């Protein structure tokens, strides 16, 4: 049975619906990637899962519990974490304080969780006292992902984690995504770098005008000539 089930959702930012019946599932051990042209509603779908975009119709459920339109500040309590594409760190807080905030809803010391995140991102341990705003783009992305991982979520939503990063950091981030997945967290991500993302993904969805166009395994999508022509620049 799948961990996340999104079925036929409609909704948007108040005007016309951006999401027009999109559906997807993520199993508890999967990396799932959403690709598609600009304006297809990829990020909107992600935000809708996290309660940041109001859904007019359709449903979202996590492990059998309906979480449709639940307030975003409740999502963490259900084991769901979200990393926005932009403004995804507290710039005036130190790296370590950013991580502590990720643990806020839980009583008790965040120490063990912080050490686990430093284990995954050793770069951050060296910069623990620095303001997150002073870091490079790639390191900020690590802080943002680290913050989201503090509660050991069942599913992490990543909105274009490699946008604007140098090729070197892109590879690092994709590696870390695999590592996060190996340690038992399901991953749903939106990516512009479709080719690389599909290589590490178990499955992928191609979204167009707010609904599914193709869904298949990552390898099959890479091999699909239509998809290749449209999104992979082949």
């Amino acid at each position, binding site marked *: 049975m799948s961990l996340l089930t999104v079925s036929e959702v409609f909704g948007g930012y108040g005007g016309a619906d951006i999401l027009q019946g999109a559906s997807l599932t993520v199993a508890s051990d999967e990396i799932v990637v959403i690709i598609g042209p600009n304006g297809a509603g990829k990020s909107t779908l992600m935000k809708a899962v996290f309660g940041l975009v109001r859904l007019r119709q359709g449903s979202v459920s996590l492990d059998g519990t309906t979480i449709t339109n639940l307030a975003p500040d409740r999502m*963490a309590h259900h084991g769901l974490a*979200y990393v926005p594409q932009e*403004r995804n760190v*507290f710039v*005036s*807080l130190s790296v370590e304080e950013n991580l502590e*905030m990720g643990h*806020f809803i839980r009583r008790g010391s965040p120490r063990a969780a912080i050490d686990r995140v430093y284990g995954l991102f050793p770069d951050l341990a060296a910069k623990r006292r620095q303001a997150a705003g002073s870091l490079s783009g790639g390191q900020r992305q690590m802080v943002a992902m680290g913050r989201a991982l503090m509660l050991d979520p069942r599913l992490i939503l990543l909105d274009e984690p490699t946008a604007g990063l140098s090729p070197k950091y892109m590879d690092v981030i994709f590696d870390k995504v695999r590592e996060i997945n190996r340690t038992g967290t399901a991953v749903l991500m939106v990516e512009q770098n479709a080719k690389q993302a599909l290589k590490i993904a178990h499955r992928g969805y191609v979204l167009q005008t707010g609904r599914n166009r193709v869904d298949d395994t990552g390898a099959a999508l890479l091999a699909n000539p239509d998809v290749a022509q449209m999104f992979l620049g082949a």
Partner: protein
Amino acid sequence: MADFVSFYLMPGVVLGCIYALGAVGLTLLFGILRFAHFAHGDVMTVGAYVAFVGVVSFGLTAYQSIPLAILVSVLLVMAIDRTFYRPLRRASPIVLLISGFGVALMLRAAILFFFGPDGGVYEQGIRRPMIFATEWGRFRIQERHLWIIGGAVALALTLHLFLTRTRLGKAMRAMSDNPDLARITGIPTERVILATWAIGGATAATAGVFLAIDTQVNPMMGMNMLLPIFAAMILGGVGRPWGAVFGGLVLGIAEELVAAPIWGGQPLLSPAYKVGLSFAVMVLLLIFRPTGLFKGQS
């Protein structure tokens, strides 16, 4: 030299401490709620009058009345937030500004209603200053001035520790930094807002009592503080607590020093123009450096 310190610098530092306590609450509230709390001065007045009741009705000293003033003011601002500001959380800043102005009028009217327009003092008679004879001259220091400075420093350090060492304090800084991310992270924003009101109410009440200890209680006292504390907040960069403390000290000291006969035995500026100084600072800052001396929110 001794006269300069005794009569100008020391009173300037004291006034600066009072401005700093007012401005620090204002700047924290702005950081969290994104609105300029116009009733902040009148919360100071309320604090001063609660202590006045403590002195007159319960026989406490003004210093002993401070916890009472804090308690009443904190409960009051929390109730005001629930009643007037919370329903307007998503309204435009102008609407909130006007509602803050309305609250300010209500508080002042309530004080006039219960206590009349005349004001009063905590302690009758004249207190002689403590005299320190040193090789640089005879310093005359009012004991109350030492208490006020000590109290303000203690409060500022406590606040600093709260903001940098505690979970809730860090969450407050996080929310001021990036409210959307705070919500995504699961930080309970309404609880952070209440905590911010508690700090704003406590610092404003203390500032009010200090001001009244140094001068007198008066229904207009807080209203008169509003301009300098706004200027202090902007000077230090909006949303930055230490900036507000710095801004308050600078303005307080500057206001006293401009009246000092530094050159040729004449005051630089007639004391009547003191208030204009804050206004001038605020206007100049808004024109040339709207984010304050230390980069704050605009």
